[in-house]
């Protein structure tokens, strides 16, 4: 019963820097959706996170997705939760976590996309900048 009542987790001292690397197109495999759930869970434990979209992963956050013909649920609106978490982390002094949402420039440009095509606000980084950022993480998870 106590476990059910406890709603706050004491995460003091166990905060790490995570990077979630999203490389795959949103539909056709479960990777994108599972990675998104993982990101949302990391927010529950107030972990620092870089959410990166590279290769076909950039398609995950493209605006105006329509999955009717594929017979799958369009989960792209859920990325809005990540954007909200980031805004909260930036603005709320009680929330001690840093989040960044980044897209690799080459992946974006090779697919004829610009930052305007995404449904959430992103930082566009060159691959060298992304590599540096990746090296600075405690944990890098790729899906």
């Amino acid at each position, binding site marked *: 019963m106590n476990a059910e009542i406890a*709603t706050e987790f004491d995460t003091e001292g166990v905060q790490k820097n995570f990077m979630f690397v999203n490389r795959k197109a949103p539909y056709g495999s479960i990777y994108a959706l599972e990675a998104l759930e993982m990101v*949302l869970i990391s927010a529950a434990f107030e972990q620092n996170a870089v959410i990166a979209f590279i290769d076909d992963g950039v398609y995950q956050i493209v605006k105006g997705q329509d999955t009717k013909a594929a017979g799958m649920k369009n989960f792209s609106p*859920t990325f809005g939760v990540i954007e909200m978490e980031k805004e909260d982390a930036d603005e709320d002094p009680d929330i001690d976590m840093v989040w960044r949402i980044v897209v690799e420039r080459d992946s974006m440009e090779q697919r004829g996309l610009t930052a305007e095509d995404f449904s959430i606000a992103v930082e566009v980084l060159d691959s060298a900048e992304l590599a540096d950022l990746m090296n600075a993480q405690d944990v890098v998870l790729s899906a």
Partner: protein
Amino acid sequence: MSYQLHGSTFESDEEGYITDISLWNEELADLIAQDEDIEMTDDHWEVVNFLREYYEEYQIAPAIRVLTKAIKKKLGPEKGNSGYLYELFPYGPAKQACKIAGLPKPTGCI
């Protein structure tokens, strides 16, 4: 499991979450609430309606932490805390309120 309302059957999973979200209506919500021993007040509806709007926008049911935070933002700090929400929904605010709101069970256990 299922709910019966005016001669119609609403299928649910074994924990009582309705299977077809699009069939939800307020009367059905009242019925699910009765099953949960909850008498719906305006305060309950405020949370349930909030959850439905959240789901409509983000296509996901919020985890408890996200729920309290979002409620705090929208309805103020006296309602945006787990104590207040547990008073309304003693068996887990996200879990119980989502069930009444006709949404899938949220990930993150409570």
